[in-house]
């Protein structure tokens, strides 16, 4: 049930001292979804990946690494 990608979501979140709930609220998703994303057990859709990239001010490929 693991993703083909490694993501740096947890790192970027920790840099900002955000909780999973903080990140979830800003992305408009549930905390459980953020947890699944961080653990690499759920691959986001392209629109959600773009929202994440926009929120962290980084390109998608800096967050999701194959």
């Amino acid at each position, binding site marked *: 049930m693991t993703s083909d990608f490694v993501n740096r979501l947890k790192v970027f979140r920790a840099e900002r001292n955000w909780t999973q709930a903080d990140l979830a609220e800003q992305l*408009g998703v549930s905390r459980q979804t953020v947890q699944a994303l961080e653990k690499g*057990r759920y691959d986001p859709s392209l629109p959600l990946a773009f929202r994440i990239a926009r929120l962290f001010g980084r390109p998608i490929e800096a967050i999701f690494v194959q």
Partner: protein
Amino acid sequence: MNTATKTAADKKKMDDLTVGLCALTVVGVSATAATPFWPATWGQAPSIGVVVLAAGLAVFLALHTLYWWRALDEAAQEAHKWAWWWGGNLGFIVGGAAVVIAALNGVDLLPAGLPHTDTALIALGVVAAFAAQAVGYGIAWCFWWTARR
């Protein structure tokens, strides 16, 4: 409109719908006149309030489901879709097989007191199929989220 705003708008619509349903319930209970143009072959005409309430409830359920679905995030939607397909289908297959095997072995599946009519047996089959799918759905939904924790 961003995702959070859309979700909030859908939740507001669900609240409005609930208020509307409460108002409709008042109308449904108080309008006691018989429903006009009710076909005689369908038996005695119910009150117009009951008919309006039933129609309103159907619309309420359809719209409430739509807004509820749109308010879910994509992972939650994916969990439901996955559970609907795998849980529903596997539940139906397993539950259906269990009912058929039980029936072939002479197990009386009808609750005590119910007559063994065709209607009762068909109703039992429908309820058993729905229950099996619902159980399968629930298990699959829990599995999807548990596997992603």
